[in-house]
């Protein structure tokens, strides 16, 4: 079956790949582009481990048909890095023990970024709501909520 050419912006860089019909964005990112930061958790929309931003909006990459991001901007956790410097959200996650096994962390960070990009000073309730689609089986969520609030109140070096 013919592959389809697909061009989009991946973390600020233009990429071009060929996808099989029906390929989801998560598989395209991991297997074709080599960005391993979004994780495969459930493939059903239940866990949030594959969360990415599409044109700034939080989406589940495992439920996104890769072809639908043609010409759009996709941001993954990999976009937060700046050489050896951690993004303020990553720093807050480290300082607040918000990552244990780490599997949910990329999705949590993207959900938190989606929140702070729109609402730089969220309430605790708003943070809980923002990460409500992301499952963590280690932390019990409290350290993650605290980390997002700490990143918000600490001011963020860059958006």
């Amino acid at each position, binding site marked *: *079956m013919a592959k389809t050419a697909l061009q989009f912006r991946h973390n600020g860089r233009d990429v071009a790949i060929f996808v099989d019909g029906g390929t989801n964005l998560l598989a395209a990112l991991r297997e074709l582009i080599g960005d391993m930061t979004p994780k495969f958790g459930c493939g059903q929309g239940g866990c949030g481990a594959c969360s990415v931003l599409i044109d700034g909006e939080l989406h589940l990459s495992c439920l996104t048909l890769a072809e639908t991001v043609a010409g759009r901007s996709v941001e993954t956790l990999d976009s937060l890095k700046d050489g050896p410097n951690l993004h303020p959200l990553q720093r807050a996650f480290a300082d607040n023990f918000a990552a244990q096994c780490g599997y949910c962390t990329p999705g949590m960070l993207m959900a938190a970024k989606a929140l702070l990009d729109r609402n730089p000073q969220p309430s605790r309730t708003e943070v809980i709501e923002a990460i409500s689609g992301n499952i963590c089986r280690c932390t019990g969520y409290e350290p993650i909520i605290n980390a997002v609030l700490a990143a918000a109140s600490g001011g963020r070096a860059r958006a």
Partner: protein
Amino acid sequence: MPVTVRTFASTGEAAAALSSDRGARYLGGGTLVMRALNEGDISISTIVRAHDHALTRVDATGSRVTIGAGVTFARILAERDLAFLHAAARSIGGPAVRNMGTVGGNLFASNPYGDFAVALLALDAVVSVQGGLGSRDVPIEEFLQTRERQTGTLALAVSFQKPASADAFRYRKIARIKPKGGSVITLAAHLPISSGRILSARIALGSMAATPIRARAAERALEGRTLDATTISAAAAAAVEGTSPADNALASGWYRREIVGVHLRRLLSGQE
């Protein structure tokens, strides 16, 4: 297994492609169809998409509301004129699912999902569909009862009369994870009141049968009455009539039958 993706500019072409291919499924937000593909559903051989602006239109300024099938739950939450539907929209998924999932797709979501369809059923919505032979309007109850046979038709929009007051439309979803987990049961009520009496009551239940259903016995108990304790008790007692809830991981059918009257009573009496 790779599938063929066909993208069209108009809903007419998309509907023609859907109706001519048994293996074709329309892709809305992806939360149902992509999930099925991820799970290896080999009945899907073609994905059909349409870039028609009509699908994402919301008209909620007048007394008749029309919502395009491609409108997301995040968009519903951003529309002030649709405040009466915010509780239903908020009860679906996390933020990412609400950014993706659509009103049209929810009509096809099977238990324990499809909560928005429960709200639309209580609102007596009409579903505009386009099949191979043109478009037509189908009452939502008929649409839901026959939806297994509707995969070849394209849902275009839903429309309904706006509730007269904030109190006239009520929604409640019982979930293990609040508010967005899969439905144990979902209830929606539309209670238009004329001179203190309920006229054309609609009670819709989710997860109480294979598709959302109306609780007709409870509706009859409310019809023409004032919403007082006696009426509410009669409606609550009748809520279970005609239901056939199944067992699933969230609750047993027995449990659902036990609690549906309790939650209808709370919904009608305005309790949290």
